[in-house]
């Protein structure tokens, strides 16, 4: 039990640093441009957070379980296309959303099949899947996308108190639910176990392949719901949407303390990672940097996040080693 409390202490300290970093970033851009904290700007940050947040929930859980899905952006986009196509065919809204969710589940199952049955590394097979979905979506929509209209748009365009967008609320609810699942349920603990030590997990009666399947399907479903919300927000299911979704989600997760080695991290840090990421990217626009600079910044931020993770891990190792030496002396 003592070990666990030490772990939470580290996580808490990490989230504190992260919160300070996010505050500094926000303050910096506010000083550079007062419009950065205007109602519109805050809304657009929250909107951006809603998509990358949904994807980050799924990706965090995959990373904790030691896997990755680089097709998550494409799955979100394709989920949106499925939903829009179903709506265009005259289906009721709930049916269209369920169709998208079903697609997400199937996409997750396909990934899990490759990883579990054929032993292919998840990063490379999901790159292939990403091309498949992207090409199909362009082909099926004639590269133009599918427009949506009517009551469905309320899912994306309404806002609580006129400021907090509905997709953001949905994302926040997902974050809270999954924080609970990860911390307090058997399946949540099983995900940490297979990510931390697969062989040990198996010995304690966890079936790693089953858990892997669950986290992939879970990721596909969450991504598809994210895609549905994006479609409602944008009024169109665009095959070019969410192209950098996987990278954003990975960056947010890793910034938030989810370890790439698996077995560590949680949802609380993930939220602050998201805030930091999206505030930073929106801030670049606020200071009038060219649009394409965002691409560079996203990649650079991912590199920085991973470097910070490395230095944190090394610091921890050094502390443990120092403590061990102390003990040896005694």
């Amino acid at each position, binding site marked *: 039990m003592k070990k666990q409390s030490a772990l939470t202490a580290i996580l808490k300290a990490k989230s504190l640093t992260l919160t300070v970093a996010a505050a500094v970033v926000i303050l910096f851009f506010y000083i550079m441009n007062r419009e950065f904290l205007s109602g519109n700007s805050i809304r657009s940050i929250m909107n951006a957070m809603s998509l990358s947040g949904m994807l980050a929930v799924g990706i965090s859980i995959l990373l904790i379980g030691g896997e990755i899905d680089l097709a998550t952006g494409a799955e979100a986009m394709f989920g949106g296309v499925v939903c829009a196509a179903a709506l265009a065919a005259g289906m009721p809204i709930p049916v269209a959303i369920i169709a998208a969710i079903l697609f997400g589940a199937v996409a997750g199952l396909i990934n899990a099949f490759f990883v579990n049955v*054929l032993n292919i590394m*998840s990063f490379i097979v999901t790159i292939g899947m990403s091309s498949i979905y992207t090409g199909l979506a362009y082909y099926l929509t004639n590269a133009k996308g599918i427009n949506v209209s009517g009551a469905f748009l309320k899912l994306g365009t309404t806002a609580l108190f006129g400021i907090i967008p509905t997709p953001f609320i949905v994302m926040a609810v997902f974050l809270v639910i999954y924080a609970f699942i990860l911390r307090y349920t058997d399946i949540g603990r099983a995900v940490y176990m297979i990510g931390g030590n697969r062989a040990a997990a198996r010995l304690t009666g966890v079936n790693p392949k089953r858990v892997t399947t669950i986290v992939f399907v879970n990721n596909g479903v969450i991504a598809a719901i994210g895609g549905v919300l994006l479609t409602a927000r944008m009024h169109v299911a665009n095959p070019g949407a969410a192209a950098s979704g996987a990278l954003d989600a990975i960056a947010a997760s890793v910034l938030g303390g989810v370890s790439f080695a698996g077995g560590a991290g949680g949802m609380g840090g993930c939220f602050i990672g998201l805030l930091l990421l999206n505030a930073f990217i929106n801030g670049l626009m606020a200071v009038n940097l060219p649009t394409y*600079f965002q*691409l560079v910044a996203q*990649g650079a931020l991912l590199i920085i996040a991973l470097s910070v993770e490395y230095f944190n891990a090394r610091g921890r190792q050094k502390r443990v080693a120092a403590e061990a030496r102390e003990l040896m002396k005694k």
Partner: protein
Amino acid sequence: MNGKRFLMSKTFTLLAFLALLILAFGIATGWRFVELVNIRNILQTTSVIGLLAVGAGALMIAGYIDLSAGGVGTMCALLCAVMLSRGVPWYAGTLAAVALGIIAGLFSAFLINKLNFQPFIATLAMAQVTEGLAYLICNATPIPVKDPVLKFIGGARIFTYIPYSVLIVIIAFVIYAILMNKTKFGRSVYLIGANPEASRLAGLNPKRLTYILFANSGALASIAGILLMSRSGTANATGITKNQFSGITAAVLGGISFGGGNGGIAGAFIGLLILGSFNNAMTLLGLDAYLQTTAAGALLIAALIIDSLTARRTLSGKKPRSKAKADKEAAQ
């Protein structure tokens, strides 16, 4: 001797598959596929991918991967184009571009060696950075390339038939095949891929080799980008990014598996021909351009499945490669 015979048989299988593929595509396209003009087209369009396949193949034999080749090559070609448009001679522009490619490769290797990044995520981030830089270099507008020497290299043909770009790629394959099979350097690449720990104990320096191989991948990507630019007469921010994973696909199709330590450059060449034939046949058969993206993804996955079924060993990344090797050796 045993290993050599195995490699021969693998090469033979690949060749047989390629022959079957050519026959099938020939029949499907009413023999348009095997016309001389079309074969030249295949060779010319695959020349860009060929250079990427050599770089990716060498890295994958050592157990690494570079997902940034597309971005790096595009960025470097744009640098070259900008320099040319400012009146810099072609060789200086090309050298600068190759140097930039080497720097990008070294940076990826630095992230992997010094900061313990997983190769795929380090290079994925680099892909994003270099693609963004490519847009910034050209401000999202294409730059025309008028340099006569580069246009000659990109477009001219020997005996009005064999394009120079194809010759460059064939020379590259021959050099790297010799380098990998006949030299101490090549053997150390195989050893590191097969068992990094043992190779370190045997006195090799895996980190140094990682720097060399990533620099090599960056340099080849850069040349590939310049080759495409010279052939098409313009450099733009899309560049070779759509061939981002083609080099890897060709290498996997050619029998270089993800675990490292096996496969060969000769196999990658056959893999390249398979990929090139496939892409060309898709165009000849009138497959929608967007569906070709889908087909490229499907081909990569097909290659991975074949690799998985033939290798029959754990590649899931979490288990150390050396363990999979040890299991295999114990079984023999």
